[in-house]
């Protein structure tokens, strides 16, 4: 079985997001970068499926040269190959992103690596567009299941579960298929030291991209007005307990 997993490099903001002066981006001067938690789980799932069924795995990202960091993380966890759809351009909306991924997958298929399972995050951490996986599936004529929290791959089919109010929905679909997963489907492992060393030696396959023509144009980013409050300090250490319980009574949480 061949498994593809798509990830996106995003900043990891702390307690407050700051935007750049032109208001078109997050100010990343003091930030590290990561991939979305959903995608970390997609990478882990790809490795587990290959461990269980044999075959090979590929990680793909569309992004700047610096996104090699996220590809190497995936390689360190056990993904076999990495493809960078390299672009420094901004303005990649979900449609343009999906088109570029589809184009790359058509090239892979022509080079005799058709994929049986295509794993995505349910939504990217930054844009939260909820659609790249679905668009890729439609373009390739594959079925798609989103929001997946458990995945079993069998003989030419898959069984996927996702959480809904009061329980879980179970879906079946034939392979090849696209699956968009959510954090919680598994607990990703941390890359081992030998894994990291091996990853650094692997070649990243680079495919330069032309600048996109987005359908959804970002005009500006802004930080929503914060609900700041001056916290009332109820006390220090365990001596604060009576004041806390007074509060719980006042809020009606503890009966008086």
């Amino acid at each position, binding site marked *: 079985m061949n498994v593809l997993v798509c990830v996106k490099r995003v900043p990891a903001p702390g307690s407050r997001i700051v935007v750049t002066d032109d208001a078109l981006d997050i100010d990343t001067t003091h930030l590290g970068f990561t991939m979305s938690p959903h995608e970390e789980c997609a990478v882990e799932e790809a490795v587990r499926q290959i461990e269980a069924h044999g075959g090979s795995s590929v990680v793909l990202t569309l992004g700047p040269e610096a996104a090699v960091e996220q590809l190497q993380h995936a390689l360190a966890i056990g993904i076999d190959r990495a493809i960078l759809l390299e672009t420094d351009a901004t303005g990649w909306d979900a449609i343009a992103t999906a088109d570029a991924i589809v184009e790359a997958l058509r090239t892979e298929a022509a080079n005799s690596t058709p994929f049986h399972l295509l794993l995505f995050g349910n939504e990217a951490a930054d844009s939260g567009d909820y659609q790249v996986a679905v*668009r890729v599936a439609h373009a390739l004529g594959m079925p*798609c299941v989103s929001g997946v929290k458990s995945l079993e791959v069998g003989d030419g089919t898959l069984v996927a579960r996702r959480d809904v109010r009061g329980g879980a929905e179970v879906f079946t679909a034939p392979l090849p298929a696209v699956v968009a997963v959510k954090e*919680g489907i598994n607990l990703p492992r941390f890359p081992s030291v030998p894994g990291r060393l091996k990853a650094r030696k692997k070649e990243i396959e680079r495919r330069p991209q032309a600048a996109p023509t987005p359908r959804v144009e970002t005009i500006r980013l802004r930080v929503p007005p914060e609900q700041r409050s001056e916290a009332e300090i109820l006390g220090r250490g365990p001596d604060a307990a009576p004041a806390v319980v007074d509060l719980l009574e006042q809020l009606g949480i503890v*009966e008086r």
Partner: protein
Amino acid sequence: MILVLIEHDTGVVESTSLQALTFARGLGEPLRGVAFGDGGARALEAAGAYGIEAGTHIRAQESHAPGAWAHAIADLAASTSSPAVVAAGTDRGHEILAHVGARASAPFVANCIAAERDGDAWNLARQRWGGSLLEDARVRGPLTLLTVALHAVAADAVPDAAAVAVDEIEPPFSEDDQRVRKTAFEATSTGAVSLGDARLVVGGGRGVGGAEGFVDLDALATTLGGTVGVSRAVTSAGWRPHAEQIGQTGERIAPDLYIACGISGASQHMVGCRGAKKLLVINTDADAPILARADYAVVGDLHQVVPAITTEVARRRTDDPPER
């Protein structure tokens, strides 16, 4: 007409869809509701109070996956030349509109909080990063798909609702539509209050220090009849299951009180607890960012403060039992 997807539970319209309807009324076009499955016609009639003039009930089977529903919506949008389809920003709303967008080659903008028609374009405001960042965007084209961020607008009925003209269609679902099949619903039968519905949440973060450290939080939650929730630092370390995670990639909570212990206040955590009416923080660091959002705080080690609170509640209950 603008199409609005109405999600319902056997005829009872979801509150999230009522919010989406209220939002869609501001777009300056008459609305047609679209509902699927059993009870759909009843849901559409009820949605009249929120401003739809017409409704289409699409008969669908239990086994149909949302992708099949999207096929019917894309066809309806084309046959009615709708400029927009609106849905609530639920998992299902996002999923269906993504499929409609893929079928119709139309842009889909998720989690909008405002929308305004401007000639053949839409000026939109939407949430990114789970709501900790906003984006003003512009999109152009004959068909635009929008989901409405949850709780961005309060559901509001119209004063002078007219009866809804409901038609019913049974679309010819294709073989491709049936490739993904819903084969079962597995009910969870724990009976426990889910995190999203809990009135009181006791939250634990990295400051709890390990899986064993949660005994103190579990005891307080039990004493107060609340539910334990955690930060991603806790689930990533494997101390607690992901089902308990609060935040951008976890649950959204809306309790009367959230007691956050040993949590620093990362934006991705805070978007999950914005719905809490009051926030009490217990943290050793008086400068932790979460204090800037807190209503009340205790500065101290949670392993001393939390058991002291549990003991104090128990003491008052024994010394001074409430009258029944």
